[in-house]
Protein backbone atom coordinates (compact mmCIF):
# COMPACT_ATOMS: atom_id res chain seq x y z
CA UNK A 1 0.00 0.00 0.00
CA UNK A 2 1.15 3.49 -0.75
CA UNK A 3 2.22 5.83 2.03
CA UNK A 4 0.56 9.14 1.31
CA UNK A 5 -0.28 12.11 3.43
CA UNK A 6 -3.65 13.39 4.48
CA UNK A 7 -3.62 16.22 1.95
CA UNK A 8 -2.96 13.83 -0.88
CA UNK A 9 -5.55 11.34 0.33
CA UNK A 10 -8.24 13.98 0.43
CA UNK A 11 -7.14 15.44 -2.85
CA UNK A 12 -7.21 11.99 -4.46
CA UNK A 13 -10.69 11.29 -3.17
CA UNK A 14 -11.96 14.53 -4.66
CA UNK A 15 -10.16 13.99 -7.92
CA UNK A 16 -11.40 10.43 -8.34
CA UNK A 17 -14.99 11.34 -7.53
CA UNK A 18 -14.89 14.23 -9.97
CA UNK A 19 -13.55 11.94 -12.66
CA UNK A 20 -16.19 9.33 -11.86
CA UNK A 21 -19.23 11.61 -11.77
CA UNK A 22 -19.48 14.87 -13.58
CA UNK A 23 -22.23 16.03 -11.30
CA UNK A 24 -19.59 16.45 -8.62
CA UNK A 25 -18.15 19.95 -8.45
CA UNK A 26 -16.29 22.11 -5.96
CA UNK A 27 -17.09 25.61 -4.81
CA UNK A 28 -15.49 27.78 -2.19
CA UNK A 29 -13.04 30.56 -1.50
CA UNK A 30 -9.71 30.16 -3.28
CA UNK A 31 -10.36 26.58 -4.35
CA UNK A 32 -9.59 27.40 -7.99
CA UNK A 33 -6.86 29.73 -9.18
CA UNK A 34 -5.10 29.65 -5.82
CA UNK A 35 -5.38 25.87 -5.60
CA UNK A 36 -6.97 25.77 -2.15
CA UNK A 37 -5.54 27.52 0.88
CA UNK A 38 -4.28 24.17 2.15
CA UNK A 39 -3.37 23.18 -1.42
CA UNK A 40 -5.87 20.31 -1.38
CA UNK A 41 -7.31 21.32 -4.75
CA UNK A 42 -4.02 22.23 -6.38
CA UNK A 43 -4.20 21.46 -10.08
CA UNK A 44 -7.97 20.97 -10.08
CA UNK A 45 -8.82 24.27 -11.73
CA UNK A 46 -6.38 23.58 -14.53
CA UNK A 47 -7.71 20.07 -15.05
CA UNK A 48 -11.44 20.37 -14.47
CA UNK A 49 -11.93 23.97 -15.47
CA UNK A 50 -13.79 26.84 -13.90
CA UNK A 51 -17.19 25.26 -14.30
CA UNK A 52 -16.38 22.49 -11.88
CA UNK A 53 -13.89 24.26 -9.63
CA UNK A 54 -15.58 27.48 -8.67
CA UNK A 55 -13.97 30.32 -6.80
CA UNK A 56 -16.61 32.19 -4.84
CA UNK A 57 -16.87 35.61 -3.26
CA UNK A 58 -16.26 35.71 0.50
CA UNK A 59 -19.79 34.75 1.37
CA UNK A 60 -20.04 31.55 3.35
CA UNK A 61 -23.83 31.50 3.55
CA UNK A 62 -23.96 31.75 -0.23
CA UNK A 63 -21.43 28.98 -0.59
CA UNK A 64 -23.39 26.55 1.53
CA UNK A 65 -26.78 27.88 0.40
CA UNK A 66 -25.89 27.56 -3.27
CA UNK A 67 -24.56 24.08 -2.66
CA UNK A 68 -27.88 23.14 -1.07
CA UNK A 69 -29.83 24.45 -4.04
CA UNK A 70 -27.59 22.74 -6.56
CA UNK A 71 -27.85 19.48 -4.62
CA UNK A 72 -31.63 19.73 -4.49
CA UNK A 73 -31.83 19.86 -8.27
CA UNK A 74 -29.47 16.98 -8.87
CA UNK A 75 -25.84 17.98 -8.60
CA UNK A 76 -23.33 16.78 -6.03
CA UNK A 77 -21.59 19.85 -4.71
CA UNK A 78 -18.56 19.77 -2.47
CA UNK A 79 -18.59 23.12 -0.72
CA UNK A 80 -15.36 24.14 0.91
CA UNK A 81 -15.32 26.39 3.92
CA UNK A 82 -11.77 27.56 4.35
CA UNK A 83 -11.88 26.82 8.07
CA UNK A 84 -14.54 25.58 10.43
CA UNK A 85 -14.44 28.93 12.18
CA UNK A 86 -16.13 30.45 9.15
CA UNK A 87 -18.83 27.81 9.33
CA UNK A 88 -20.50 30.01 11.93
CA UNK A 89 -21.09 32.54 9.17
CA UNK A 90 -23.04 29.85 7.31
CA UNK A 91 -24.50 28.31 10.44
CA UNK A 92 -28.13 28.64 9.46
CA UNK A 93 -27.59 26.88 6.18
CA UNK A 94 -25.48 24.14 7.74
CA UNK A 95 -27.69 23.24 10.66
CA UNK A 96 -31.07 24.72 9.85
CA UNK A 97 -31.45 24.34 6.08
CA UNK A 98 -29.42 21.44 4.71
CA UNK A 99 -30.45 18.92 7.38
CA UNK A 100 -34.11 19.94 7.41
CA UNK A 101 -35.07 19.90 3.73
CA UNK A 102 -35.54 16.19 3.42
CA UNK A 103 -37.75 15.81 6.46
CA UNK A 104 -39.72 19.05 6.22
CA UNK A 105 -41.11 18.31 2.79
CA UNK A 106 -41.95 14.72 3.62
CA UNK A 107 -39.04 13.19 1.76
CA UNK A 108 -39.52 15.03 -1.52
CA UNK A 109 -36.05 16.53 -1.66
CA UNK A 110 -32.63 15.23 -0.86
CA UNK A 111 -29.53 17.32 -0.31
CA UNK A 112 -26.57 15.21 -1.40
CA UNK A 113 -23.76 17.59 -0.59
CA UNK A 114 -20.53 17.70 1.33
CA UNK A 115 -19.20 20.61 3.31
CA UNK A 116 -15.45 20.19 3.57
CA UNK A 117 -13.72 22.27 6.16
CA UNK A 118 -10.61 22.35 8.31
CA UNK A 119 -10.63 22.83 12.06
CA UNK A 120 -8.20 22.75 14.92
CA UNK A 121 -5.75 24.93 16.78
CA UNK A 122 -2.08 25.03 17.48
CA UNK A 123 -1.08 27.26 14.62
CA UNK A 124 -1.14 30.59 16.48
CA UNK A 125 -4.13 31.88 14.61
CA UNK A 126 -5.80 33.37 17.65
CA UNK A 127 -9.15 32.89 19.31
CA UNK A 128 -11.44 33.30 16.31
CA UNK A 129 -9.48 31.05 13.96
CA UNK A 130 -8.44 28.07 16.06
CA UNK A 131 -11.55 26.26 17.11
CA UNK A 132 -12.65 22.65 17.16
CA UNK A 133 -16.38 23.09 17.70
CA UNK A 134 -17.27 19.73 16.21
CA UNK A 135 -19.89 18.79 18.79
CA UNK A 136 -21.80 21.92 17.91
CA UNK A 137 -22.47 20.67 14.39
CA UNK A 138 -22.90 17.05 15.44
CA UNK A 139 -25.76 18.11 17.72
CA UNK A 140 -28.16 18.35 14.79
CA UNK A 141 -30.10 15.36 13.47
CA UNK A 142 -30.35 15.38 9.70
CA UNK A 143 -26.69 16.25 9.31
CA UNK A 144 -23.93 13.67 9.17
CA UNK A 145 -20.63 14.74 10.67
CA UNK A 146 -17.40 12.99 9.83
CA UNK A 147 -13.89 13.74 11.04
CA UNK A 148 -11.15 11.34 9.96
CA UNK A 149 -7.90 10.72 11.79
CA UNK A 150 -5.88 8.82 9.17
CA UNK A 151 -5.24 9.30 5.45
CA UNK A 152 -6.96 6.03 4.60
CA UNK A 153 -10.10 7.01 6.44
CA UNK A 154 -9.98 10.50 5.05
CA UNK A 155 -9.99 9.16 1.55
CA UNK A 156 -12.54 6.44 2.09
CA UNK A 157 -14.91 8.58 4.11
CA UNK A 158 -14.78 11.52 1.74
CA UNK A 159 -15.62 9.31 -1.20
CA UNK A 160 -18.55 7.85 0.70
CA UNK A 161 -19.66 11.32 1.75
CA UNK A 162 -19.69 12.54 -1.83
CA UNK A 163 -21.86 9.59 -2.82
CA UNK A 164 -24.18 9.99 0.16
CA UNK A 165 -27.73 11.20 -0.36
CA UNK A 166 -27.53 13.25 2.83
CA UNK A 167 -25.64 16.41 3.70
CA UNK A 168 -22.30 15.58 5.26
CA UNK A 169 -20.03 17.90 7.15
CA UNK A 170 -16.50 16.66 6.63
CA UNK A 171 -14.11 18.11 9.18
CA UNK A 172 -10.39 17.93 8.47
CA UNK A 173 -7.66 19.14 10.79
CA UNK A 174 -5.54 22.00 9.55
CA UNK A 175 -2.43 20.75 11.32
CA UNK A 176 -2.69 17.21 9.97
CA UNK A 177 -2.32 17.59 6.21
CA UNK A 178 1.25 16.32 6.39
CA UNK A 179 0.41 13.25 8.44
CA UNK A 180 1.26 10.11 6.49
CA UNK A 181 -0.34 6.72 6.43
CA UNK A 182 -1.06 3.73 4.25
CA UNK A 183 -3.94 4.14 1.87
CA UNK A 184 -5.36 1.20 -0.08
CA UNK A 185 -5.11 1.55 -3.85
CA UNK A 186 -8.15 1.48 -6.10
CA UNK A 187 -11.73 1.99 -5.04
CA UNK A 188 -11.61 2.54 -1.31
CA UNK A 189 -14.80 3.40 0.55
CA UNK A 190 -15.25 3.68 4.29
CA UNK A 191 -18.82 3.68 5.59
CA UNK A 192 -20.09 6.70 7.50
CA UNK A 193 -21.22 5.86 11.02
CA UNK A 194 -18.69 3.23 11.98
CA UNK A 195 -16.10 3.61 14.69
CA UNK A 196 -12.91 1.60 14.48
CA UNK A 197 -10.17 0.24 16.70
CA UNK A 198 -6.97 1.85 15.47
CA UNK A 199 -4.64 0.23 17.98
CA UNK A 200 -5.27 -2.80 20.07
CA UNK A 201 -4.70 -3.09 23.78
CA UNK A 202 -6.18 -4.61 26.88
CA UNK A 203 -5.61 -2.27 29.79
CA UNK A 204 -7.55 0.86 28.94
CA UNK A 205 -9.71 2.20 26.14
CA UNK A 206 -8.87 5.58 24.68
CA UNK A 207 -11.68 7.03 22.59
CA UNK A 208 -10.87 9.80 20.20
CA UNK A 209 -10.92 11.06 16.63
CA UNK A 210 -9.07 13.43 14.27
CA UNK A 211 -6.04 15.01 15.86
CA UNK A 212 -7.05 13.54 19.19
CA UNK A 213 -6.37 10.19 17.58
CA UNK A 214 -2.79 11.20 16.85
CA UNK A 215 -2.27 12.24 20.44
CA UNK A 216 -3.85 9.02 21.62
CA UNK A 217 -1.68 6.80 19.49
CA UNK A 218 1.43 8.64 20.61
CA UNK A 219 0.30 8.35 24.21
CA UNK A 220 -0.39 4.66 23.75
CA UNK A 221 3.12 4.15 22.42
CA UNK A 222 4.58 5.89 25.45
CA UNK A 223 2.34 3.97 27.82
CA UNK A 224 3.42 0.73 26.25
CA UNK A 225 6.92 1.43 27.53
CA UNK A 226 5.45 1.44 31.01
CA UNK A 227 3.68 -1.80 30.31
CA UNK A 228 0.26 -0.26 29.82
CA UNK A 229 -1.47 -1.45 26.68
CA UNK A 230 -4.06 1.04 25.52
CA UNK A 231 -6.69 0.22 22.95
CA UNK A 232 -7.45 3.25 20.82
CA UNK A 233 -10.89 3.57 19.27
CA UNK A 234 -11.41 6.17 16.56
CA UNK A 235 -14.95 7.50 16.32
CA UNK A 236 -14.43 8.75 12.74
CA UNK A 237 -18.09 9.79 12.53
CA UNK A 238 -19.53 12.11 15.17
CA UNK A 239 -23.11 11.82 13.95
CA UNK A 240 -24.47 9.21 13.74
CA UNK A 241 -22.29 8.09 16.62
CA UNK A 242 -21.34 4.42 16.64
CA UNK A 243 -20.46 3.18 20.11
CA UNK A 244 -20.24 -0.49 19.14
CA UNK A 245 -16.45 -0.85 19.08
CA UNK A 246 -16.15 1.54 22.03
CA UNK A 247 -18.37 -0.60 24.23
CA UNK A 248 -16.76 -3.78 23.07
CA UNK A 249 -13.36 -2.45 23.97
CA UNK A 250 -14.55 -1.06 27.26
CA UNK A 251 -16.09 -4.33 28.32
CA UNK A 252 -12.60 -5.74 27.98
CA UNK A 253 -10.61 -2.95 29.60
CA UNK A 254 -13.11 -1.48 32.07
CA UNK A 255 -11.28 1.81 31.96
CA UNK A 256 -11.62 4.70 29.61
CA UNK A 257 -10.15 8.04 28.65
CA UNK A 258 -11.67 10.27 25.97
CA UNK A 259 -9.47 12.65 24.02
CA UNK A 260 -10.62 15.58 21.94
CA UNK A 261 -8.96 18.80 20.87
CA UNK A 262 -12.00 21.03 21.45
CA UNK A 263 -13.46 22.22 24.72
CA UNK A 264 -14.69 19.43 26.95
CA UNK A 265 -17.84 21.14 28.16
CA UNK A 266 -20.71 19.95 25.96
CA UNK A 267 -18.08 18.27 23.85
CA UNK A 268 -17.57 14.87 22.29
CA UNK A 269 -16.17 13.08 25.31
CA UNK A 270 -19.15 14.00 27.47
CA UNK A 271 -21.53 12.20 25.14
CA UNK A 272 -19.29 9.18 24.83
CA UNK A 273 -18.82 8.97 28.58
CA UNK A 274 -22.53 9.40 29.32
CA UNK A 275 -23.43 6.64 26.88
CA UNK A 276 -20.75 4.26 28.06
CA UNK A 277 -21.73 4.65 31.69
CA UNK A 278 -25.31 4.03 30.73
CA UNK A 279 -24.73 1.10 28.43
CA UNK A 280 -21.88 -0.63 30.20
CA UNK A 281 -22.51 0.32 33.79
CA UNK A 282 -21.50 -3.03 35.15
CA UNK A 283 -18.11 -2.89 33.54
CA UNK A 284 -16.84 0.31 35.08
CA UNK A 285 -13.84 0.10 37.33
CA UNK A 286 -12.87 3.75 37.45
CA UNK A 287 -14.35 7.08 36.43
CA UNK A 288 -13.88 7.96 32.79
CA UNK A 289 -11.40 10.79 32.33
CA UNK A 290 -11.80 13.36 29.62
CA UNK A 291 -8.84 15.09 28.03
CA UNK A 292 -9.77 18.28 26.20
CA UNK A 293 -8.81 21.86 25.57
CA UNK A 294 -8.74 24.20 28.55
CA UNK A 295 -11.89 26.28 28.65
CA UNK A 296 -10.53 29.45 27.11
CA UNK A 297 -10.55 31.05 23.67
CA UNK A 298 -7.11 30.13 22.37
CA UNK A 299 -4.44 32.79 22.81
CA UNK A 300 -1.98 33.74 20.07
CA UNK A 301 1.21 33.23 22.07
CA UNK A 302 2.63 29.89 21.12
CA UNK A 303 3.55 28.58 24.55
CA UNK A 304 0.27 29.71 26.05
CA UNK A 305 -1.67 28.21 23.20
CA UNK A 306 0.08 24.88 23.60
CA UNK A 307 -0.53 25.08 27.31
CA UNK A 308 -4.26 25.38 26.61
CA UNK A 309 -4.33 22.55 24.08
CA UNK A 310 -4.38 18.91 25.09
CA UNK A 311 -0.96 17.26 24.85
CA UNK A 312 0.25 13.70 24.67
CA UNK A 313 1.40 14.07 28.26
CA UNK A 314 -2.15 14.91 29.30
CA UNK A 315 -3.41 11.72 27.74
CA UNK A 316 -0.69 9.70 29.42
CA UNK A 317 -1.49 11.28 32.77
CA UNK A 318 -5.21 10.66 32.38
CA UNK A 319 -4.63 7.03 31.54
CA UNK A 320 -2.41 6.64 34.57
CA UNK A 321 -5.18 8.03 36.70
CA UNK A 322 -7.63 5.38 35.62
CA UNK A 323 -5.48 2.25 35.38
Amino acid at each position, binding site marked *: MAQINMRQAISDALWEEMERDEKVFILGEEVGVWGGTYAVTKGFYEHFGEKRVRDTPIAE*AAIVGAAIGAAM*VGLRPVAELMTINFAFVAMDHIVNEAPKM*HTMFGGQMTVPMVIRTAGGGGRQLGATHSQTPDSVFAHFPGLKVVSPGTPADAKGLLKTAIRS*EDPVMFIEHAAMYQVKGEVPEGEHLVPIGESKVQREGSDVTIVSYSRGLQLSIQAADQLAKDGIEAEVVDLRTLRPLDLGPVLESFKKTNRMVTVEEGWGTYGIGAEVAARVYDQAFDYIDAPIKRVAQKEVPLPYNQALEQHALPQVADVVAAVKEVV
Partner: protein
Amino acid sequence: MALKKKDHLELYRQMVLIRRVEQRAAQLYQEGKIGGFLHLYIGQEAVSTGIVSVRKPQDRLITAYRDHGLALNVGISAKEVVAELMGKETGVSKGRGGSMHMADVEKNYWGGHAIVGAHIPVAAGMALGDQYMENDGVTICLMGDGATNIGFFHEGVNLSAVWDLPVLWVVENNQYGMGTAVGRASAVEQIRQKAEGYNIPNARLEDGMHIMKVREGVEPALEHVRSGKGPYFLEIMTYRFEGHSMGDPQRYREKGEVEKWEKTDPIGIYNNYLTSEKIATKADLDKVEQAVEDEVAEAVEFAENSPDPAFDTLYDYVYAEGE
Protein backbone atom coordinates in the same frame (compact mmCIF):
# COMPACT_ATOMS: atom_id res chain seq x y z
CA MET B 1 -49.10 34.44 -24.87
CA ALA B 2 -52.63 35.68 -25.51
CA LEU B 3 -55.15 34.27 -23.12
CA LYS B 4 -58.35 32.56 -24.21
CA LYS B 5 -61.50 32.82 -22.19
CA LYS B 6 -60.92 29.47 -20.57
CA ASP B 7 -57.42 30.57 -19.57
CA HIS B 8 -58.83 33.65 -17.92
CA LEU B 9 -61.40 31.60 -16.09
CA GLU B 10 -58.66 29.29 -14.88
CA LEU B 11 -56.61 32.20 -13.55
CA TYR B 12 -59.66 33.67 -11.92
CA ARG B 13 -60.37 30.27 -10.41
CA GLN B 14 -56.88 30.07 -8.96
CA MET B 15 -57.13 33.47 -7.35
CA VAL B 16 -60.51 32.72 -5.85
CA LEU B 17 -59.27 29.33 -4.72
CA ILE B 18 -56.33 30.86 -2.86
CA ARG B 19 -58.68 33.33 -1.20
CA ARG B 20 -61.27 30.77 -0.15
CA VAL B 21 -58.76 28.19 1.05
CA GLU B 22 -57.12 30.82 3.20
CA GLN B 23 -60.34 32.22 4.58
CA ARG B 24 -61.35 28.71 5.50
CA ALA B 25 -57.90 28.06 6.96
CA ALA B 26 -58.28 31.09 9.20
CA GLN B 27 -61.50 29.61 10.56
CA LEU B 28 -59.90 26.23 11.07
CA TYR B 29 -57.11 27.97 12.92
CA GLN B 30 -59.62 29.60 15.25
CA GLU B 31 -61.15 26.19 15.82
CA GLY B 32 -57.76 24.85 16.79
CA LYS B 33 -57.53 22.50 13.85
CA ILE B 34 -54.53 24.24 12.36
CA GLY B 35 -51.58 25.15 14.56
CA GLY B 36 -48.27 26.93 14.34
CA PHE B 37 -47.93 29.96 12.13
CA LEU B 38 -50.38 30.70 9.37
CA HIS B 39 -49.31 33.46 7.01
CA LEU B 40 -52.13 34.39 4.69
CA TYR B 41 -51.53 35.53 1.14
CA ILE B 42 -54.85 37.37 0.92
CA GLY B 43 -54.40 40.55 -1.11
CA GLN B 44 -51.36 39.27 -2.98
CA GLU B 45 -53.08 36.65 -5.17
CA ALA B 46 -52.47 38.49 -8.43
CA VAL B 47 -48.73 38.25 -7.92
CA SER B 48 -48.27 34.51 -7.63
CA THR B 49 -51.05 33.77 -10.07
CA GLY B 50 -49.64 36.14 -12.63
CA ILE B 51 -46.15 34.75 -12.26
CA VAL B 52 -47.15 31.11 -12.52
CA SER B 53 -49.32 31.88 -15.54
CA VAL B 54 -46.27 32.95 -17.52
CA ARG B 55 -43.67 30.53 -16.31
CA LYS B 56 -42.79 27.45 -18.30
CA PRO B 57 -42.79 23.99 -16.75
CA GLN B 58 -39.02 23.96 -16.61
CA ASP B 59 -38.99 27.14 -14.54
CA ARG B 60 -38.46 26.42 -10.88
CA LEU B 61 -40.31 28.28 -8.16
CA ILE B 62 -39.18 28.94 -4.61
CA THR B 63 -40.50 31.33 -2.00
CA ALA B 64 -40.67 32.12 1.71
CA TYR B 65 -43.23 30.91 4.26
CA ARG B 66 -46.15 32.84 2.70
CA ASP B 67 -46.45 29.99 0.28
CA HIS B 68 -50.07 28.82 -0.13
CA GLY B 69 -50.65 30.96 -3.17
CA LEU B 70 -47.90 29.40 -5.24
CA ALA B 71 -48.86 25.97 -3.97
CA LEU B 72 -52.35 26.27 -5.39
CA ASN B 73 -51.17 28.03 -8.54
CA VAL B 74 -48.83 25.22 -9.51
CA GLY B 75 -51.66 22.77 -9.11
CA ILE B 76 -51.22 21.22 -5.71
CA SER B 77 -54.80 20.28 -4.89
CA ALA B 78 -56.76 22.11 -2.23
CA LYS B 79 -57.03 18.75 -0.52
CA GLU B 80 -53.30 18.37 -0.17
CA VAL B 81 -52.92 21.98 0.91
CA VAL B 82 -55.59 21.85 3.60
CA ALA B 83 -54.43 18.43 4.74
CA GLU B 84 -50.92 19.84 5.14
CA LEU B 85 -52.27 22.78 7.11
CA MET B 86 -53.94 20.26 9.39
CA GLY B 87 -50.75 18.23 9.64
CA LYS B 88 -52.14 15.13 8.00
CA GLU B 89 -50.22 12.31 6.35
CA THR B 90 -52.13 13.12 3.14
CA GLY B 91 -50.76 16.66 3.10
CA VAL B 92 -48.41 17.69 0.36
CA SER B 93 -45.48 17.49 2.78
CA LYS B 94 -46.94 14.53 4.68
CA GLY B 95 -47.85 16.70 7.64
CA ARG B 96 -44.20 17.36 8.44
CA GLY B 97 -44.06 20.87 7.06
CA GLY B 98 -47.29 22.69 7.78
CA SER B 99 -48.26 26.06 6.39
CA MET B 100 -44.71 27.30 5.91
CA HIS B 101 -43.37 24.27 4.07
CA MET B 102 -45.35 23.30 1.06
CA ALA B 103 -43.53 22.05 -1.99
CA ASP B 104 -44.17 19.78 -4.90
CA VAL B 105 -40.99 18.89 -6.63
CA GLU B 106 -42.84 17.18 -9.48
CA LYS B 107 -44.44 20.51 -10.20
CA ASN B 108 -41.11 22.29 -9.95
CA TYR B 109 -42.21 24.08 -6.79
CA TRP B 110 -39.44 23.95 -4.24
CA GLY B 111 -41.22 25.43 -1.22
CA GLY B 112 -41.95 27.22 1.28
CA HIS B 113 -38.97 28.31 3.49
CA ALA B 114 -39.31 29.72 6.95
CA ILE B 115 -36.01 31.40 7.73
CA VAL B 116 -36.23 34.86 6.23
CA GLY B 117 -33.98 35.13 3.20
CA ALA B 118 -32.27 31.77 3.65
CA HIS B 119 -33.83 30.49 0.46
CA ILE B 120 -32.18 33.21 -1.61
CA PRO B 121 -28.74 31.58 -1.84
CA VAL B 122 -30.54 28.25 -2.24
CA ALA B 123 -32.35 29.68 -5.27
CA ALA B 124 -29.00 30.82 -6.67
CA GLY B 125 -27.82 27.25 -6.28
CA MET B 126 -30.84 25.87 -8.11
CA ALA B 127 -30.17 28.26 -10.96
CA LEU B 128 -26.55 27.18 -10.91
CA GLY B 129 -27.79 23.63 -11.29
CA ASP B 130 -29.67 24.53 -14.44
CA GLN B 131 -26.79 26.50 -15.83
CA TYR B 132 -24.39 23.63 -15.08
CA MET B 133 -26.67 21.03 -16.65
CA GLU B 134 -27.46 23.36 -19.53
CA ASN B 135 -31.20 23.29 -18.95
CA ASP B 136 -33.13 26.29 -20.18
CA GLY B 137 -35.18 26.71 -17.02
CA VAL B 138 -35.25 29.88 -14.99
CA THR B 139 -35.40 29.81 -11.22
CA ILE B 140 -38.01 32.26 -9.99
CA CYS B 141 -37.35 33.25 -6.41
CA LEU B 142 -39.95 35.25 -4.53
CA MET B 143 -39.15 37.08 -1.33
CA GLY B 144 -40.65 39.74 0.89
CA ASP B 145 -39.52 43.35 1.18
CA GLY B 146 -38.24 42.64 4.67
CA ALA B 147 -36.05 39.83 3.42
CA THR B 148 -34.00 42.24 1.34
CA ASN B 149 -32.26 43.48 4.48
CA ILE B 150 -30.72 40.24 5.58
CA GLY B 151 -27.20 39.20 4.65
CA PHE B 152 -28.45 36.16 2.73
CA PHE B 153 -30.03 38.47 0.19
CA HIS B 154 -26.76 40.24 -0.44
CA GLU B 155 -24.73 37.08 -0.77
CA GLY B 156 -27.22 35.21 -2.93
CA VAL B 157 -28.04 38.06 -5.28
CA ASN B 158 -24.39 39.02 -5.70
CA LEU B 159 -23.50 35.44 -6.53
CA SER B 160 -26.21 35.33 -9.18
CA ALA B 161 -24.72 38.38 -10.84
CA VAL B 162 -21.09 37.29 -10.61
CA TRP B 163 -21.96 33.90 -12.10
CA ASP B 164 -24.64 35.13 -14.51
CA LEU B 165 -27.15 32.70 -13.13
CA PRO B 166 -30.55 32.19 -14.72
CA VAL B 167 -32.63 33.48 -11.85
CA LEU B 168 -35.47 35.95 -11.65
CA TRP B 169 -35.54 37.70 -8.29
CA VAL B 170 -39.01 38.87 -7.35
CA VAL B 171 -39.61 41.06 -4.34
CA GLU B 172 -43.23 41.06 -3.25
CA ASN B 173 -43.29 44.47 -1.65
CA ASN B 174 -46.37 44.26 0.55
CA GLN B 175 -45.03 47.27 2.41
CA TYR B 176 -44.36 45.58 5.72
CA GLY B 177 -42.08 42.99 7.20
CA MET B 178 -44.24 41.94 10.11
CA GLY B 179 -44.98 45.34 11.70
CA THR B 180 -42.08 47.20 10.17
CA ALA B 181 -42.88 49.49 7.26
CA VAL B 182 -40.39 49.30 4.43
CA GLY B 183 -39.01 52.76 5.09
CA ARG B 184 -38.09 51.86 8.63
CA ALA B 185 -35.96 48.92 7.55
CA SER B 186 -34.56 49.74 4.11
CA ALA B 187 -32.73 52.92 3.20
CA VAL B 188 -33.78 53.15 -0.44
CA GLU B 189 -37.06 54.47 -1.71
CA GLN B 190 -37.62 51.63 -4.11
CA ILE B 191 -36.36 48.20 -3.26
CA ARG B 192 -35.37 47.59 -6.87
CA GLN B 193 -32.57 50.12 -6.34
CA LYS B 194 -30.80 47.49 -4.31
CA ALA B 195 -30.17 45.61 -7.55
CA GLU B 196 -27.93 48.49 -8.65
CA GLY B 197 -25.38 47.31 -6.12
CA TYR B 198 -25.10 44.12 -8.16
CA ASN B 199 -25.36 45.60 -11.60
CA ILE B 200 -28.56 43.63 -12.23
CA PRO B 201 -31.19 45.08 -14.57
CA ASN B 202 -34.29 45.80 -12.58
CA ALA B 203 -37.73 47.31 -12.54
CA ARG B 204 -40.55 48.12 -10.22
CA LEU B 205 -44.01 46.98 -11.15
CA GLU B 206 -46.23 49.59 -9.55
CA ASP B 207 -49.46 47.66 -9.79
CA GLY B 208 -49.24 44.16 -8.44
CA MET B 209 -52.95 44.04 -7.76
CA HIS B 210 -53.89 43.68 -11.41
CA ILE B 211 -52.97 40.26 -12.69
CA MET B 212 -52.72 41.42 -16.29
CA LYS B 213 -50.11 43.99 -15.29
CA VAL B 214 -48.22 41.39 -13.32
CA ARG B 215 -48.13 39.15 -16.37
CA GLU B 216 -47.00 42.02 -18.57
CA GLY B 217 -44.19 42.84 -16.20
CA VAL B 218 -43.01 39.34 -15.45
CA GLU B 219 -43.00 37.92 -18.94
CA PRO B 220 -40.23 40.08 -20.40
CA ALA B 221 -38.22 39.76 -17.21
CA LEU B 222 -38.43 36.02 -17.48
CA GLU B 223 -37.47 36.06 -21.13
CA HIS B 224 -34.54 38.32 -20.35
CA VAL B 225 -33.22 35.69 -18.01
CA ARG B 226 -34.07 32.79 -20.28
CA SER B 227 -32.19 34.36 -23.14
CA GLY B 228 -28.97 34.00 -21.16
CA LYS B 229 -28.52 37.60 -20.08
CA GLY B 230 -28.14 36.68 -16.43
CA PRO B 231 -30.38 37.54 -13.51
CA TYR B 232 -33.15 40.11 -13.45
CA PHE B 233 -34.62 41.85 -10.44
CA LEU B 234 -38.29 42.74 -10.20
CA GLU B 235 -40.05 44.55 -7.40
CA ILE B 236 -43.82 44.12 -7.40
CA MET B 237 -45.99 46.43 -5.32
CA THR B 238 -48.77 44.70 -3.45
CA TYR B 239 -50.46 44.64 -0.06
CA ARG B 240 -51.27 42.09 2.57
CA PHE B 241 -54.83 42.52 3.77
CA GLU B 242 -54.57 40.34 6.85
CA GLY B 243 -52.17 40.34 9.77
CA HIS B 244 -48.66 39.01 9.36
CA SER B 245 -49.70 35.71 10.87
CA MET B 246 -52.67 34.81 13.02
CA GLY B 247 -52.98 36.93 16.16
CA ASP B 248 -51.22 40.01 14.82
CA PRO B 249 -52.62 43.08 16.65
CA GLN B 250 -51.75 45.22 13.61
CA ARG B 251 -50.92 48.26 15.66
CA TYR B 252 -48.46 49.34 13.00
CA ARG B 253 -50.96 50.26 10.27
CA GLU B 254 -51.96 53.81 9.49
CA LYS B 255 -55.65 54.53 9.96
CA GLY B 256 -57.79 53.65 6.95
CA GLU B 257 -54.89 52.01 5.20
CA VAL B 258 -56.44 48.58 4.84
CA GLU B 259 -59.71 50.00 3.60
CA LYS B 260 -57.91 52.02 0.99
CA TRP B 261 -56.09 48.99 -0.29
CA GLU B 262 -59.11 46.76 -0.22
CA LYS B 263 -60.55 48.91 -2.91
CA THR B 264 -57.77 47.48 -4.97
CA ASP B 265 -58.63 43.89 -4.15
CA PRO B 266 -56.94 41.85 -6.89
CA ILE B 267 -59.93 39.54 -7.21
CA GLY B 268 -62.37 42.43 -7.49
CA ILE B 269 -60.13 44.07 -10.05
CA TYR B 270 -59.89 40.96 -12.14
CA ASN B 271 -63.61 40.29 -11.88
CA ASN B 272 -64.25 43.80 -13.04
CA TYR B 273 -61.77 43.54 -15.85
CA LEU B 274 -63.19 40.28 -17.13
CA THR B 275 -66.75 41.53 -17.19
CA SER B 276 -66.07 45.06 -18.41
CA GLU B 277 -63.80 43.79 -21.16
CA LYS B 278 -66.57 41.32 -21.93
CA ILE B 279 -64.21 38.39 -21.62
CA ALA B 280 -66.57 36.64 -19.24
CA THR B 281 -70.03 37.20 -17.84
CA LYS B 282 -70.94 37.56 -14.23
CA ALA B 283 -72.59 34.16 -14.52
CA ASP B 284 -69.32 32.60 -15.72
CA LEU B 285 -67.52 33.98 -12.74
CA ASP B 286 -70.22 32.99 -10.30
CA LYS B 287 -69.94 29.49 -11.62
CA VAL B 288 -66.21 29.48 -11.04
CA GLU B 289 -66.73 30.77 -7.54
CA GLN B 290 -69.30 28.12 -6.78
CA ALA B 291 -67.01 25.38 -8.04
CA VAL B 292 -64.29 26.70 -5.77
CA GLU B 293 -66.66 26.68 -2.79
CA ASP B 294 -67.38 23.04 -3.47
CA GLU B 295 -63.73 22.19 -3.93
CA VAL B 296 -62.77 23.84 -0.67
CA ALA B 297 -65.58 22.15 1.25
CA GLU B 298 -64.45 18.85 -0.14
CA ALA B 299 -60.84 19.59 0.68
CA VAL B 300 -61.67 20.36 4.28
CA GLU B 301 -63.67 17.20 4.60
CA PHE B 302 -60.85 15.22 3.04
CA ALA B 303 -58.34 16.74 5.41
CA GLU B 304 -60.47 16.25 8.48
CA ASN B 305 -60.91 12.60 7.63
CA SER B 306 -57.25 12.02 6.86
CA PRO B 307 -54.99 10.29 9.37
CA ASP B 308 -52.18 11.86 11.33
CA PRO B 309 -48.75 10.51 10.45
CA ALA B 310 -48.14 7.31 12.42
CA PHE B 311 -45.70 7.51 15.31
CA ASP B 312 -43.54 4.85 13.77
CA THR B 313 -42.85 7.11 10.82
CA LEU B 314 -41.10 9.65 13.03
CA TYR B 315 -37.64 8.78 11.78
CA ASP B 316 -38.65 8.15 8.18
CA TYR B 317 -37.30 11.27 6.53
CA VAL B 318 -34.52 12.32 8.85
CA TYR B 319 -31.94 10.79 6.58
CA ALA B 320 -32.41 9.75 2.98
CA GLU B 321 -29.97 6.97 3.51
CA GLY B 322 -28.90 4.71 6.36
CA GLU B 323 -28.44 6.14 9.72
